[in-house]
């Protein structure tokens, strides 16, 4: 094997007119680009509805889980610092900042669920946080996205005994402790994943601190 044929890539194409002309190169590439664009536009159109459907379902499942399957679920959108039943104009309702309000069969409010995030050990921890806006008592949380260390930080998802502590705790604000505790506003952090546990607590406090005043103001305004 001489090796020369391999040194400089493929030699010229078999047909003599297959190279050189700048026009030919441009036209070929442009044509390929246009074709690829058309194929992708078609695929995008076809896959957009199921992708959006899943994104909506995922949030709905999380909301129902943290609010304990409420009889009725309302959505309020944040428009200009205030809550409103109508989504802000010109914004995709899926992308808009919003809060979900759960009520029981008698029409009494049982809890509010919001999406919030804070940095953990190696990623942002995104949670759906459920709490009772009048008492600041938590109804639960669900991890929407995280890429924390497998086997340590991801216990916030996999270790159910961590998540079980939260319902009923008061976020005024919520604190973490490495020892077992009976304090109404303290939870036990996970051994080896203190930073991630504290991130969960931080997200919950942030959610309650930001959204309780908004919900209070909305309730005072007679729900308008």
């Amino acid at each position, binding site marked *: 094997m001489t090796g020369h044929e391999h040194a400089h890539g493929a030699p010229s194409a078999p047909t003599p007119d297959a190279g050189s002309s700048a026009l030919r190169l441009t036209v070929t590439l442009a044509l390929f680009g246009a074709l690829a664009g058309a194929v992708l536009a078609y695929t995008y159109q076809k896959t*957009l509805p199921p992708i959006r459907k899943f994104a909506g379902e995922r949030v709905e499942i999380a909301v129902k889980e943290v609010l304990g399957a409420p009889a009725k679920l309302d959505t309020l959108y944040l428009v200009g610092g205030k809550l409103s039943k109508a989504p802000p104009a010109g914004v995709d309702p899926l992308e808009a900042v919003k809060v979900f309000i759960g009520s029981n069969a008698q029409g009494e409010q049982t809890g509010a669920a919001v999406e919030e995030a804070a940095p953990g050990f190696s990623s942002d921890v995104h949670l759906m946080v459920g709490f009772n806006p009048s008492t600041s008592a938590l109804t639960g949380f669900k991890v929407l996205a995280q890429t924390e260390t497998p086997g340590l930080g991801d216990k916030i998802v996999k270790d159910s005994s961590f998540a079980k502590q939260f319902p009923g705790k008061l976020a005024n604000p919520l604190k973490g402790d490495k020892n077992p505790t009976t304090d109404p506003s303290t939870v036990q952090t996970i051994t080896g994943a203190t930073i991630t546990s504290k991130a969960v607590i931080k997200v919950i406090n942030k959610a309650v601190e930001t959204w309780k005043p908004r919900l209070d103001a909305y309730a005072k305004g007679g729900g308008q």
Partner: protein
Amino acid sequence: MTTDTVVAADAAEPIVPGAPPPGPLWLDFWRGIAQDNPVMIQMLGLCPSMAVSNSLANGIGMSAAVIFVLVMSSVLVSSLRKVIPNEVRLASYILIIATFVTISDLVMQAYFPLLSNTLGPFVPLIVVNCIILGRAEAFAGKVKPLRAAVDALGMGVGFTVALCSIAAFREVVGNGTLLGYHLFGLNYEPWVFMIMPPGGFLTMGLGFLFMGWWGERKKAKLAEVTA
């Protein structure tokens, strides 16, 4: 081993310099699985093999996407080999590959959303996977579509075998599960290290060691026979 001995088996197809020598189709398929395995022998596509091999489910999903992109782009590259000007062939190949990758990414997001979530950016990154551009340049651009498809399928299956064995090993040792089923009961304390990046390096190193030992043994046996 030299190209001088190659005889044009197919008169209709002029031999393109640097083209793979003509041979039976099964060999084109088998080469990708065994003696030219993309991961274990050619050492291509190591980045996804490292990143998504922490569970078998991820490995299977990734392999399916790679096989789809590899076969489709190889067939298209081969069909268009006389249309694509030599000077812009790499740009055209990347364009073709990127189109199929985006299609598979969108389809995964739409119909396998959970898998798409865990694979994250590694599906879009198939665009820069050397296996696919490598096969387009070294093989598909120089042969007829049927051979290109068979070769691509072989390489894809070879990638699958390598990725899934690494992934299965890492998941069993590092998480105590296989495809999510607990193998050793709930009291097993998994060796978490194995599903983290260092475990990936270690597993691949062991794999390469085994392949090297296997190759040496084969060579020694061959020398014994000829001696």
